[in-house]
Each structure stands twice: as C-alpha cells, then as structure tokens.
C-alpha cells in the first residue's frame, strides 16, 4: 500500500515525454540531475547525519573525469560516466577517511574547504580544464532528448532502489543508529569507522554519476558546478522535499527545478525565494514540506482512519 504513490509517480514520469516536448523535457532532465544529487545527499545528511558541503564538488569530479576521458581518450560516454562515478567514489573515500574523527561543524567546514580548493583547482589549472570557460563535451545519444530523459529516469530509479535497498538492510539500521548516537552504536558493536566510510563512498559515487550524466546532457562542464550556491540549491531541494526521505528529496528537486523554470521572469529573485522557503521549512516543519502535504492529503482521503505518518523514511 505504501508503495502505491511511488508507482503512480513512476508511471507519470514514464508518460511525461508523451505530453511535453523539447523545452520542458530538457527542464525535467535537469530536474533529474538535481534529484540524483539531492537524494544521495539526503541519504548522507538525513540518514547518516553527516552534513557534507562537498557534494556538488563530487558531482564536478564525476563530470570532469568523464569529460576529460571522453575527449582525450575517445572512450564511450557510458564508460566515461562510470569512471567518473568511480573517481568521485575515490574522492569520497579520501574525504571520508580524512574526516573520520570529525563531528558537526568541523566536518562541515572541512568539506566546505575541500569543495572550495577543488573549485579553485578547476579554475586555475587552465591546461587541463580550460579554467572558467569550461570544457566542451560531446552529447549523449547525439542530443536525443527523449533517450536522455529515459536514461536519467533510469539512473534515478536505480539510485533510489539501491539506496533504499541499503536502508532496508542491516546496514541501514547501523547507519541510522550512528545518526542518533555514534558512540552508542559503537559500543553496541557497530563498526562506525567502516560504515561512515561506506556511506561517504556510496553517496559520492552517486554524486559523481549524476555529474557525469549532467556533463553529457548539457555539453559543457565548468567550475560553476562546484560553487557553494550549487550546494545551497541541493540543500534547499533536499530540505524542501524532506531531509529524511530519499524519495521526498528527489521530488523536492524536481518540483523546485520546475518552479525555477516557471519563475524564469523573476530570475534573480528565485534563489532568495528558495532561501526563504527553506528557512520557513526548517523553522516550522523540519521534516520537509512535501511529506507534510502528503500527510495532509492522506488525512483528507481517509478521514476516518488515523493519518499515516508518511515520509518517515
């Protein structure tokens, strides 16, 4: 029963290209990119309790790895994206290992520092990355939007499936235990060192995957991908959709991305609006707006029965 809405959404998503062509399809693809990022980020932040500001940088790692390999070595795009994900996973391992002993604000600062150094590196190493001009990258499927859309959707479904599989397993339980009380979990025999690294590697890999995908959709990678404001966007989407719900975070990304395009005329105001929205969410409904709406809708639907606590995961 609980899966029904998710399947409904999937059907809607599959039918989407029938109704919308070119422009909105492209918007949806970008939305899928952000959905990949924010669902994997909310896995890290909401489930494991590690607030990392390096997620956008991991996406840039994936994007640049794939872009450079495809351009220089002429390898197939799919292989490039996979290698990008591997590179991001490697960076994730590194950062995870460096920050093993850190908590809360210290961890956030270190990841922020790493993200900024990486962005500076991308801007400065002109020979490799062409600095802030960015790299021109070949498009996937020669730019066929419908195929790209289904690829993105496939990636998202796969990501969510894998992440939920992890959460449903014993490992998910360990991760959540670590979120609530890391020392407590450790005394109960959870290998916290191992699982922290594990969480970092998995989520970074998905960020890298998203980055590689994005590179070959847009056809341009630039250091802007690793900007702090990009990270802010991911954060806004995750919180809006519900930090502790992967599906919610993914939906939040798609909704906000759609909203962004819809509000194109207010271009410069929109991030301010998002900021206000997120502040409001955090203040009044920290579990996210979408789960709350879902709950309300549910309560109206089954007026008699108890409202189901939705989106608790």
């Amino acid at each position, binding site marked *: 029963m609980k899966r029904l809405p998710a399947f409904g959404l999937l059907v809607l998503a599959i039918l989407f290209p029938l109704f919308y062509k070119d422009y909105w399809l492209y918007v949806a693809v970008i939305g899928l990119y952000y959905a990949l990022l924010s669902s994997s980020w909310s896995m890290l*932040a909401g489930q494991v*309790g590690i*607030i990392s*500001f390096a997620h956008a940088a991991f996406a840039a790692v994936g994007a640049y790895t794939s872009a450079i390999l495809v351009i220089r070595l002429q390898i197939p795009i799919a292989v490039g994206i996979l290698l990008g994900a591997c590179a991001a996973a490697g960076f994730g391992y590194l950062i995870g290992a*460096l*920050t093993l*002993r*850190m*908590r*809360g*604000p*210290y961890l*956030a*600062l*270190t990841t*922020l*520092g*790493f993200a*900024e*150094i990486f962005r*500076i*590196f991308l*801007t*400065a190493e002109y020979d490799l990355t062409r600095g802030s001009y960015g790299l021109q990258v070949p498009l996937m499927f020669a730019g066929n939007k419908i195929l790209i859309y289904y690829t993105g959707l496939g990636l998202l479904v796969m990501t969510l499936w894998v992440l939920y599989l992890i959460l449903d397993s014993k490992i998910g339980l360990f991760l959540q235990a670590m979120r*609530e*009380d890391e*020392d407590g979990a450790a005394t109960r025999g959870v290998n916290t060192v191992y699982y922290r690294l594990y969480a970092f590697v998995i989520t970074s890999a998905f960020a890298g995957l998203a980055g590689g995908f994005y590179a070959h959709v847009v056809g341009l990678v630039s250091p802007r991908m690793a900007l*702090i*404001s990009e990270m*802010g966007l991911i*954060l*806004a989407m995750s*919180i809006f959709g519900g930090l502790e719900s992967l599906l919610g975070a993914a939906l939040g990304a798609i909704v906000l991305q759609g909203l962004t395009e819809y509000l194109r005329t207010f271009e*410069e*105001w929109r*991030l*301010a609006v*998002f*900021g*206000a929205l*997120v*502040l409001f969410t*955090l*203040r009044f409904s*920290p579990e996210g707006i979408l789960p709350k709406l879902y709950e309300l809708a549910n309560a109206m639907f089954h007026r008699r029965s108890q409202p189901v606590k939705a989106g608790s995961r």
Partner: protein
Amino acid sequence: MVIGTLYALMALGLSLIFGVLKLVNFAHGESMMVGGYLYYFLATSFIVHLLGLPLVVALAATVPVLFFFGFILEQTFLRPAYNRQTARYDEYVILVTFTLGIFLQNLALPLFGPYNRQAPAIFKGRIRIGDLIIAGDRLTGAVVAFAVIVVLFIFLYRTYWGKGLRAVSQNPEAAASLGINVPRMRSMAFGIGISLTGIAGALLGQIFLVNPVMGVPFAVKAFVIVVLGGMGSIKGTIVGAFILAVVESFGSILLPDPTRALAYKDAYGLLLLIVTLMFRPQGLFGEKVRRA
C-alpha cells in the same frame, strides 16, 4: 599587520558566536556584506550629508542596527532549536545558518544589483612611516579595528555582561544555575558577533568594494582563522589572524607562475584549515572538548 588586524576583527565575531552558542555561523560572509551595504547607504544617505556629519558617525550607527539584526535572527531561528533541546542541534544550526547566508546573498543580488560600489572612505590620502607608505583607507581600517577589539576586551573582561558571556561560553548549565539568563546571553552574543562582523564588512568595503558576494572570500578566511586559533578562544583568534595574513603573503611567492599563484592564494588558507582540523582540531589555543 594592517590586514592582520582586520582579519582579527572579522574572525572575532565568528569566534564569539561559536564560544557562546556552540555553532559555526555559516552566514558569516553575508553578515559582513550586510554591514558593508549598511555603511555604504548610511554614508551616502542625505542625512549624513545634510548635517555634514563625519563618516565615523555612519560607521558607529551601523553597530546598533547590526546588533538588533543579529538579536532578532537568533530569536527567530536559533532559539527554537535550543529550547527544543534537540539531539541534532548541531545539524539543524548548520543548515539554518547556511541557508540564511544563501538567502541574504540572493536577496542582496536583486535588491542592490550585482555591480560593485565603492564605499566612501573615512580618511583619504596616504601616510608615510619611514619607507612604508600606507593608504589611508587601510590605516583607518586597522585603527578602527584595533579600537573595536580593545573595546570588546574591556567589555568581555571588565563588565557584568561580559562576565556572563564568558561564563555561558565555559559552562552554560553552571551559568544558568548561578542566575545568568542563558537564552538572553545567547541572543546577545549573536548580536555582538554580527555587529563585529558587520563593522569588519564596513571597513573592508572602503578598502575593497561592496557587492553581494564580497563576504565570501573573507568568510572562508575567518573560518580558517577561528579553527587555527581554537574555536571560541578570543586570544587564539587574534593570533590565528596574524598567522593567516603571513601565510597568505608568503604563500603567494611560493609558486612561480603569477596567475596561478594568485588563484591559489585562497587555497593555502583552506589547506591550513584542513590540516589544523586533522591534527589539532582544538586549534592552537583551544581547550580540548570532551566528546559528548
């Protein structure tokens, strides 16, 4: 030395907030930006011109406004988290302050436009000390920053309120049991922290330029300084500021390629940050925090 003093001032706000509220204010750069704009508008406003007031008055006027701003922010967004005594206070406040920063920055963008503004300098001209020539704006910055730091020290170590702040910083429970209004102190610390940051922004706005993202590079520097000196330690912050100023100026000589050296100038600070966090997370002067 001049840059070091300014660095110290802007990092002190962050340090004070961390000491009392136990949170890193990720909206630090934006607080600085708010201060910069506030000073700019006050200094160019007609009231100041009409009355022929000196610009120092405009600078002084930013302080109560910023204090109030910080005070309100704490009451609105941070107080509930503290009251709820949530186990995940750390994460909540990171998210809130970070979002606040994004919000302020993107509010300033459409409101004031992305272009640079030159805030009027309090003292123009140059001063020659021996062979050294110092531009007036930098000198003003250093002098005012130094004065503010002295006032802050007097406040912290000679007044009742200052004592209260330090007590809460050391042990909130004990402070509360001795009749100190802890929530009030927290709001006050946030207000003072924002004012300090804002004055630093106003001073930096005279030297460099005022724009919506002016605070970002300085915020990163402030993070480095505070971590280096030890989170929440006032003396450590000042020492950290001078260390960073020295490292930055020597670091840029290290790389031969000038464009690359300039680009990596900020990276040195960040590297310093990560190395400190790895090997001595309590900083140079910080106390070792008991792991909760």
